[in-house]
């Protein structure tokens, strides 16, 4: 009963009402949809509390486990997580200390981690022909190099410019094919849930 019957009824009813609220131009459905989506954001907030608890549990266990590497890192994570939470609760997201954490720690830190991907992507690109030796891999690399060259502000001969424009069009086409395929997958997966055929919330 609680495993899948009630959850399925809830998922189907909520899903249908929200879908109608988005696609059927009737005001009552739109109002219901707004309320239901707002409720879902509250549930997402509860999920975040649980997920936060999971982070704390994992790292508390690591701090107290012997013969384990990076215990201090786990301790730093715990202290940082608790202090930031307390500050946000006390001051709110606009508080001076919270803003300092955002602008002096989180923004530069995340940007630095993103910058690391420049190196990991380059290394990965260099390994391309060790895993793939196919015409498609050649096409992948040639396109990547051509597009990178295209970002350099140099005046290229007309033929090269023409090639770049046509490759760009081919890339746009390929990406649209990819995105449209994914959209179809999303629609079908979503419909399976809304029709109650799929029940991932009860363990699949």
């Amino acid at each position: 009963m609680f495993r899948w019957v009630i959850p399925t009824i809830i998922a189907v009813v909520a899903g249908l009402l929200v879908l109608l609220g988005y696609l059927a131009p009737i005001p009552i459905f739109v109002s219901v949809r707004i309320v239901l989506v707002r409720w879902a954001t509250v549930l997402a907030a509860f999920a975040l509390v649980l997920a936060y608890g999971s982070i704390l549990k994992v790292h508390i266990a690591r701090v107290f486990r012997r013969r384990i590497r990076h215990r201090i890192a786990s301790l730093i994570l715990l202290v940082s997580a608790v202090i930031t939470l307390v500050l946000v609760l006390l001051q709110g997201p606009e508080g001076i200390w919270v803003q300092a954490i955002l602008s002096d720690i989180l923004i530069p830190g995340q940007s630095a981690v993103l910058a690391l991907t420049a190196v990991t992507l380059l290394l990965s690109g260099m390994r391309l022909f060790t895993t793939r030796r196919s015409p498609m891999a050649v096409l992948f690399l040639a396109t990547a190099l051509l597009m990178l060259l295209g970002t350099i502000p140099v005046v290229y001969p007309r033929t090269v410019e023409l090639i770049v424009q046509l490759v760009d069009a081919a890339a746009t086409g390929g990406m649209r094919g990819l995105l449209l395929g994914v959209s179809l997958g999303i629609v079908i997966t979503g419909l399976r849930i809304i029709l109650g055929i799929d029940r991932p919330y009860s363990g699949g």
Partner: protein
Amino acid sequence: MTETLGLIVGAVLTLMVFSYLLGDNVLYRWALALLVGAAAGYAVGVAARYVLNDWIVGALAAQGAPDSLAYAVPLVLGALLLLKGFPPTRFLGRIAVIGNSSLGYLVGVGAAVAVSGALVGTLIPQVTVTGEALRIDEGGLAIAQGAVVLLGTVLGLYYFHTRPHTHRDAPPSKTPVQQKTERLGMAFIAIALGTAFSGALTSALTALVLRLWQLVELAERLISLVAG
């Protein structure tokens, strides 16, 4: 002064993160732990304030049954969801299955949001824009580009065409034309991925240059401070 201090903190953190380029090490791990902890604390703090201020306080102040119900339903579903945090060895963990209802609600609403978003936000606009790219009144190159985009989209989409069959049947064989069409579709996708790779690399390099530039800026500021 506070601004300089902030810059120093950001710069030290950047250098600690960049130390990963020399291999996995404690400095990188400490920086990452600090960032993950701060991000998690910030996110949960904002979420907790939202629930507390907008919903719990609202529920306490609600007047009339419909109003109270509108506040109570998500809070009750949220409370049921919290049962999922208990391990199965505890009593509350054993009844965690009750939380499936809350998860069902999230999945149901999420499915509807995703379906409408995919259709109205991606599928229909992409179909329209792909068709409209082919315009006869805009010159030779524009027609060629439009035709290539159209071909790439249709073949890229065709590449994912599957031939579903039950497990006991042998998969239906493909005709040579189908095989060639699929390979052409794959070629368009490989070109798209190559372009995406260069885009990802460019954005990462931009982030790298920005971080390095900030280090230089800090050095200049410190030098000017020391020099008076």
